[in-house]
Each structure stands twice: as C-alpha cells, then as structure tokens.
C-alpha cells in the first residue's frame, strides 16, 4: 500500500527535497582517456621485448656458468707429458717428474697414469689388447693443483725441461683461454642483443608516445588553456605509459621465467637420456637460479623505467615543439589553435 499524497503541496515538495539523495561526485578519472587499442598494441610489443630481453639475459647467464664450470674443472689439474726416448728410463722419469712438480707450492697431489690406464685412453683409436712397449707412446703424470693458489707454471716448466728434456708441461691454458674468450664473446653477443632490444623498445615507445600525443592533442590543448605546465602534462603521459609498460614487462618477464622453470623441470625429469645429455653438454643446465630470476625481475623494472623515462622526454620535447609552432606566427607549418 502506498501513502496518499499530502494535501499541502509545499510540504510535499519539501518532503521530496528531503528524500532526494545528495549528488555524489564519482572518483576522479585520469586526465588522459583510459587505454585504447594503441595502448594494448604497445603493451604487447613491450611484453615481447621484455620476453626477448629476459631470454637473452638467462641464456647469457647459463652459458657463462657452464663456461665457468668447465674452466674450473680444467684448471684444477695440470699434465706432464714425457715422450719416450731410447736413453730414457720411462718409469724413473715419471716418478722424478711427479716428485719435482710436488716440490712446488700450490700443488696438492700427483698421479702417474700407468700403462693400463694409458692403454685404455688409446683404446678408441688403436683398439684393445695394446702393448705399449711396442709403440713409442708418451706417458702422462696428472698433478692436482690448488685453484686459489696455483704454482708458478713457468718455473715448473723450466725445471722439468732441465731435469728431463723429454718432459713438457701442459697447464691447459690454451683450453682455458679459449673457454674464457668464448664466454666473453657470448656475453658480448648477449649484451649486443639486449642493447638492440632496448633500442627497438625505446624507438617503439617514442613513436607510441608521439602517436598518443597526436591522438590526445585536444587534451594537450585544453591543458595548455587551463594553465598546465609542460612538466604536468609530461607527468600525466608518464603515468599512462608507466601503467602500460609495467603490465607489458611483467607479462613478458613472467613468460620468460615460466620458460626457464619449464625447461629446468623438463631437464630434471629426463636426466640420463641422450637428448638431455646433449642439451646439457651444449647449453648447460636450464636452471637460472635465484640470481637469474632476480635478473629477470630487474629487467622488468629497467624496461618499465626506460619506457616511462622515454615517454616523459618525448612528451616534453613534443610539447616544446607544439608550443614553439603555436606561438610563432612566422612559422606557417604551425598548428593553429
């Protein structure tokens, strides 16, 4: 049942006014219109760039750690090789060479590779049942060294040459140098790719910002007429691009992190299979570790900041250009207000 209308119209009107809810202001909207198709396209581009950047970063760190582990394994040992000679008592020379090497500070232990082990080493090339006495095969002494405090290789080499002219010392420096240069090359290539990715991204953001500025030209004009400073307009665009770039770089970085996690999981599940062994030998383990994930996170932040900074600089510059054109009547290429 509804109430009958009041007989006094003034009272009724006052009642209606009392009942009418006070108008509430909606939460303030951003000065730049919310995201549009252009914004979504830019977000996808930034996602792809972030994914590529994180992939490159992870790849470089994997190759570096693999090269470092190879380097450490190789540089843990040195080898003394003694070539056979008619006047040489091989067994005596081997023992003398080991003892001489162990007199140096920085050596830990020495092991003479005996005839059986030498034969096993040569088996893939010369076949089984090899009698080393029939062949002039060099013999080896393996010396384990302290990596943190290695011996003086040049002095050791000279002393060995003086005592046993048929002996030569291989400190694996050639291999280690090659590995180090390979790792450096990989890092340089990776850095180059990262630079290219960042450059492409900066250029994309410059174009996108200019596009957004011309798409929102009416907003810039209105802000100009209400007395906004360039820095205020730049901050508004900066906020807009920070949101887009944070979303984009977070998606790209998350995908890269997922890729590494999935690859690491696949590798751990298929250990000791020929495919995994081959992949491990080539690329090392796919695990990027906590540092790797921290690097991916840092890349995400760097990309977001780079995008924001680029957008701000582009806006400031473009507004300056617009202002110059607008205020200078001698410029007929100007943009009339």
């Amino acid at each position, binding site marked *: 049942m509804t109430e009958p209308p009041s007989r006094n119209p003034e009272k009724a009107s006052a009642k209606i006014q009392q009942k009418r809810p006070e*108008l*509430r*202001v*909606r939460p*303030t*909207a951003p*000065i730049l*219109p*919310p995201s549009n198709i252009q914004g979504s396209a830019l977000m996808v581009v930034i996602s792809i760039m972030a994914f590529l950047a994180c992939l490159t970063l992870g790849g470089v760190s994997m190759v570096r750690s693999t090269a470092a582990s190879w380097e450490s394994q190789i540089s843990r040992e040195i080898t003394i090789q003694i070539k056979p000679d008619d006047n040489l008592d091989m067994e005596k020379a081997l023992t003398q060479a080991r003892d001489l090497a162990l007199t140096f500070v920085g050596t830990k232990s020495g092991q003479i590779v005996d005839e059986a082990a030498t034969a096993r080493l040569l088996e893939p090339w010369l076949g089984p049942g090899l009698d080393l006495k029939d062949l002039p095969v060099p013999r080896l002494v393996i010396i384990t060294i302290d990596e943190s405090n290695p011996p003086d290789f040049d002095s050791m080499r000279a002393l060995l040459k003086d005592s046993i002219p048929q002996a030569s010392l291989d400190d694996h420096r050639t291999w280690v140098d090659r590995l180090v240069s390979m790792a450096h090359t990989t890092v340089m290539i990776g850095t180059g790719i990262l630079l290219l990715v960042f450059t492409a991204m900066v250029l994309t953001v410059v174009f996108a910002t200019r596009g957004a500025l011309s798409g929102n030209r*009416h*907003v810039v*004009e*209105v*802000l*100009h*007429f*209400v*007395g*906004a*400073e*360039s820095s*205020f307009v730049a901050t508004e665009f900066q906020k807009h691009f920070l949101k887009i770039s944070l979303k984009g770089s977070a998606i790209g970085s998350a995908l890269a992190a997922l890729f590494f996690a999935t690859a690491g999981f696949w590798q751990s599940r298929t250990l000791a299979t020929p495919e995994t062994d081959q992949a491990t030998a080539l690329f090392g383990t796919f695990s990027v570790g906590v540092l790797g994930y921290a690097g991916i996170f840092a890349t995400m932040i760097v990309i977001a900041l780079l995008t924001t900074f680029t957008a701000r600089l582009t806006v400031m510059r473009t507004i300056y250009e617009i*202002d110059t054109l*607008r*205020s*200078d*009547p*001698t*410029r*007929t290429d100007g943009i009339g*207000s």
Partner: protein
Amino acid sequence: MIHFENVGLRYGMGPEILRDLTFDIPKKSFQFLTGPSGAGKTSLLRMLFMSLQPTRGLIRMFGRDISEIPRPELPLLRRRVGIVFQDFRLLDHLTTYENVALPLRVRGKDESSYKTDVLELLKWVGLGERINVLPPVLSGGEKQRAAIARALMDRPEVLLADEPTGNVDPPMAKRLLNLFLELNRLGTAVVIATHDLALMEQVEARRMILSEGHLDIYD
C-alpha cells in the same frame, strides 16, 4: 592591466593581418571585441592569452613585457587569464565536475581543497544537477556554461570569451551575457569577441572594432 602598443601580426610571409594595435584592457572593465569574420578577433584573443607572439610591437601583461618572460613562466601568467571558446573545448571523458575542476587539478591542488568551491560554482552557473554528466550528453548552453565555469574556476583577473554565444539560442545567449555581467560586477575584466549585434545592443559597454587590420575603440 594589459597594454598593447603598436602591435602587428602576420602569418608566415603573408600580409599583416593586425596593424598598429594600441590599447589597454583596464582592471574590472567590460568590452566587446567585434569585426567581420576573418578580421583577426581570434588571433588578437590568442595574443591576449600569450599563446601567440606578435611579429612586432610591445605587449605588457600584468606589468611585464611578455617578450622578456621565459617560456616556463608563461603558464603561470596564463593562469591569471581565463578563456572560453565557441566550441567549448571540454574533455569528453571527464564529467562536468571534473572539467570545471581541471584548472585546479593542473595546479596540483588536492580535491578536498576545491570540491566545495567547484560544486558551488556549478550551482551558480546552473549546472548543480549535472555534475556527473559527460559533455556529449550536455546541451549547447550547458556546455558553454561548463566552459565558462572552468575559465572562472581559479578566479582569473581577465576573462576572454571567443564567440561565447555562437552555439546557443537567444534566450541562452542572454543568460550567458548576464553571467558575464555578474562576473564583471564581482571584479573580473571581461573581453567578449563576437559579431552578434543583438548581444552587444543589450549592454552599454566599450566596443573594440577590428576592421582591415586596424582597431577602433568606442567607449
């Protein structure tokens, strides 16, 4: 307050469209700026707003020669001038309230410090019930009143209006004129650029007539 002396303006290598303009806009004054289409009314308003530099002559705004003012300082000086356009220039994605509050927002003020003032001003121009409406939904007269409210929001010393009644019917034009007169009574100098003779006949005010690049003033 505003002083023009021998001001001339030409676009590019073209002929001088404004020649030897010498006049003052005194404080609390009310004037119409009129002339045929293409006479240069909008260009003159843009120079008054410091948005366009003259090709010759001297312009002093609030006691300062504008040719000597560094570019970053210009927005701060422009804040002392309100401007209203024939095409309103409201932002379509912002509500009436947000459009009117824009001048204070760009000055970095907190919403709580201006909310009441904006709502009062909107009531004063008759838009108290339209605060949450987006401009595409507003009528021509409402849009013009919102644009005027925006220009007045930061209490400018001068209000420049470019054909403010060009897009409204005569009764609304009269309402808007009353609004400008009321504003002038409260102390703001008003310059209305128009070629609406009917509008000018309603008020005894100073007339600045632009013709063939020259300015004639009838007090």
